């Protein structure tokens, strides 16, 4: 029987492993619908541990949107830690969902959300544990259709052997379209088998079915052509864009885990998209244009979400929250509403400007001012022009000093290392900056205990950005620059002791680079690494650089390419990139020009406040910028 619970078989295993609570489900606001009542069954996977995957907003939204349909059922599944995976294999317990503890292989669809490429080996592990053939070609009508989504799905080529389809862009509407297609095909008695189902899915706007596209390679290793193998599928697959976010107020009832997770708060997405134009930022590029939720829409989501969860913290989420057209009023009115309720409000890491300090002050009006995070990203003014995140050193120091003067004791600064055109000097400026920030901060606050944490990681060039052509810095380069930065910070102990340095070594970034800008040939590397035991690559204790480099060398050699070819090599203007047939709306010419402007250290403005500069997105996708202000305001909540 399908859809049966596996829990009685799982329970004895749970008594023998670490943190069993993550596998039992039953969280507040989770749901288990009757199997037979639904025509279409979705298993939704976040390919990392439960504690990382549970708070993922994208998956939480789709879970609700799908479960609201009477004809659909959605349950969640996460990557299983090796201790349980070993017991499951030993006892023949397959990959299961945490809601109904149903076997993943019983579902019609397995949707996998890839926030990062380092989850790929976990997908293979889950497929194997589920008893679903690893390769899409080996699956038949009885197997779930494996659909990739999330930002990494904008270049799903490295996993194209393993997924049946990839969805580009916002998921809210397209999951409904996919559900309709699967439902109709099943109701008609599955005509034409799996191939026909995939062909129907390929005609849904935003759905890419890799098996209907053939890739050929030229003698130099680059792609010669990508051609469709059926003429009823699109030449280029465009992304989906949800307009009018107020009509999609999800999640309405966020799932509250019992286990500890990485974000112990409720999140409300206050707008989607970003047109600041930071050139390294894939999220900003592929989610254009900006679509704001209105102040009243946000107000009711916060109110409803707090009631539904009991969380004590609300995060106002977006790629650059201080840019919301009503943010000042929103911060004030939310702070008024929740004054005296022990509910705290927060913004994620913000751009460096004084207004952000004002906002943070407002949100923490009567709370503790522990830490404030800014993201200058680049160490020198020059490199900040290259990445189009311009802020002068003086403004940066002044902003951070203002934060200290306003009672913030701890400031975190996010940087990247290995940016295009970067030199040692650009990175060393981070140390100067941190020292100056502490000096000025001590003076402004009159306190010795101000602290500054510099958090820095290696830059990975991503598809659909102006830096998609850039040569990635090698792990050695990154590690060298991090080393000299550490030495520079420690040079003066009296100041250096107030500065913390958090960094990631350059190796995982190289593999992320391979997977980000890889093509179909990289699939063999992923499979080999998984077969040799690779999984949880986002966790330093599980990640093995040597396993990846050996696999890459051996699996790529027959094609005449290697790890460097995919990572440190700079691409030329007319090279066919593996994701060129996947359309984020951005014109390739626009991106190339922006890349050239980056090299010339030229800035580009934000199209919210200056005229459209034709990046290509709005006309291609039929979308437009949606911003306020609406002129509305939040009325105080009636006291209960």
């Amino acid at each position: 029987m399908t859809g049966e619970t596996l829990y009685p078989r799982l329970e004895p295993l749970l008594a023998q492993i670490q943190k069993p609570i993550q596998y039992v489900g039953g969280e507040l606001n989770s749901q288990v619908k009757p199997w037979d009542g639904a025509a279409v069954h979705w298993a939704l996977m976040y390919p990392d541990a439960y504690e990382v995957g549970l708070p993922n907003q994208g998956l939480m939204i789709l879970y609700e949107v799908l479960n609201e349909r009477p004809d659909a059922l959605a349950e969640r599944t996460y990557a299983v830690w090796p201790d349980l995976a070993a017991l499951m294999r030993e006892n023949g317990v397959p990959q299961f969902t945490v809601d109904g503890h149903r076997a993943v292989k019983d579902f019609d669809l397995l949707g996998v959300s890839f926030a990062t490429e380092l989850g790929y080996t976990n997908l293979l592990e889950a497929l194997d544990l589920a008893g679903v053939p690893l390769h899409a070609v080996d699956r038949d009508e009885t197997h779930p259709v494996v659909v990739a989504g999330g930002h990494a799905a904008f270049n799903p080529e490295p996993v194209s052997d393993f997924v049946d389809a990839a969805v580009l862009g916002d998921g809210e509407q397209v999951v409904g379209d996919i559900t309709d297609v699967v439902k109709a095909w099943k109701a008609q008695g599955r005509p034409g088998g799996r191939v026909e189902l995939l062909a129907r899915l390929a005609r849904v706007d935003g759905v890419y079915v890799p098996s209907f596209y053939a890739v050929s390679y030229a003698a130099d290793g680059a792609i010669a052509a990508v051609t469709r193998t059926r003429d009823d599928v699109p030449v280029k697959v465009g992304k989906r864009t949800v307009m009018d976010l107020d009509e999609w107020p999800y999640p309405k009832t966020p799932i509250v885990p019992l286990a500890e997770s990485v974000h112990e708060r409720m999140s409300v997405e206050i707008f989607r998209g970003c047109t600041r134009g930071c050139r390294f930022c894939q999220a900003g590029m592929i989610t254009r244009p900006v679509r704001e939720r209105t102040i009243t829409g946000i107000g009711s989501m916060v109110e409803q979400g707090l009631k539904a969860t009991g969380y004590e913290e609300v995060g106002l989420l977006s790629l650059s929250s201080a840019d919301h057209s009503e943010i000042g009023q929103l911060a004030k009115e939310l702070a008024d509403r929740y004054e005296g309720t022990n509910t705290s409000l927060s913004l994620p890491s913000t751009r460096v400007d004084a207004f952000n300090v004002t906002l943070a002050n407002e949100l923490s009006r009567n709370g503790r001012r522990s830490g404030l995070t800014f993201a200058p990203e680049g160490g020198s003014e020059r490199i900040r022009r290259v990445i189009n995140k311009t802020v002068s050193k003086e403004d940066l120091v002044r902003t951070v000093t203002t934060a200290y003067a306003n009672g913030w004791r701890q400031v975190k600064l996010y940087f990247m290392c290995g940016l295009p055109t970067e030199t040692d000097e650009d990175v060393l400026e981070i140390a100067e900056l941190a020292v100056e920030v502490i000096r000025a901060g001590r003076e402004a606050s009159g306190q010795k205990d101000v602290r500054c944490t510099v958090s820095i990681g290696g830059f990975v060039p991503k598809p659909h950005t102006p830096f998609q052509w850039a040569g990635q810095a090698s792990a050695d380069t990154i590690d060298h620059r991090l080393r000299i930065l550490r030495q520079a910070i420690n040079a003066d102990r009296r100041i250096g002791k107030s500065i913390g340095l958090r960094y990631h070594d350059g190796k995982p970034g190289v593999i992320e680079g391979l997977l980000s800008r890889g093509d179909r040939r990289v699939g063999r590397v992923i499979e080999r690494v998984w077969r040799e035991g690779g999984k949880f690559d986002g966790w330093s204790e599980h990640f093995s650089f040597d396993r990846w480099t050996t696999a890459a060398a051996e699996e790529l050699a027959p094609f005449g390419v290697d790890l460097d070819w995919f990572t440190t090599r700079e691409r030329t203007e007319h090279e066919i990139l593996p994701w060129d047939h996947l359309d984020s709306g951005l014109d390739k010419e626009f991106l190339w020009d922006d890349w050239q402007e980056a090299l010339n250290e030229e800035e580009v403005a934000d199209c919210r406040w200056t005229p459209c500069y034709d990046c290509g997105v709005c006309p291609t996708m039929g979308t437009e910028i949606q911003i306020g202000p609406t002129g509305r305001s939040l009325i105080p909540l009636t006291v209960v």
Partner: protein
Amino acid sequence: MARQPEGPPPPPTVQKLRIRYAKRGRLRFASHRDLARTLERALRRAQVPMAFSAGFSPHPKISYLGAAPTGSASEAEYLEIGLSVRCDPEAVRAALDAALPEDLAVVECVEALEGTGSLADRIDTSVWRVELPGVALAELEPALAEFLSRDVVTVAKRTKNGLRDIDARASVTSAFAVEEAGCAILHMVVRQGTPAVRPDDVLAALTAVADLRPPLPPRAVRAAQGRLDDTGTVADPLGPDRAARTRCQGEHATI
């Protein structure tokens, strides 16, 4: 100058409630920390008017009494909460129960009255019921008899500081075995102390003295907690509050 919270200090505690709750089914796998987070959120959802500590990061006034280990179910876990507005204990019980996940149930809520002593002083013993699937009564009985005949049974216990030898015997004040539906069940009364002797330790002791090796993981349920008296009875720790309450009926706000 360090910042101080503006405005008046938080309202004082005007009423203390003592709560007995159960963790059942799947949620036996919740740890103490998991439960504490879940209970705090449920109290907020239930809009129970909690009293808070002062300062920039005010904490709701909740004290937990020794939690059953992760993996054990319990019918008798206890906590005490401080309220800033007087409430009907039964209304708090019902509201909190409704706000908790299905497998957590609020069994009882009583007002702690002055002069009835602290709750911690009323708990020094646990009553356990341990199901041993795949073990027959005929196997358990002799093993248990052997265990009870010893004065000391040393077992290795995993602690924060690595393995450590403890005596699993002295804390067990009584125990007996029965069978239900072909499954042996171990009932035992165990004194709480440091290091705590848990059902796992007693089972390890049964392996040590009689080579009893359950083929499947045993399932432990804490059936009760309380103070062990001279007659071997474990007294209900909420008894004194319940008795006092019938004598003194206060005014209660509803929530």
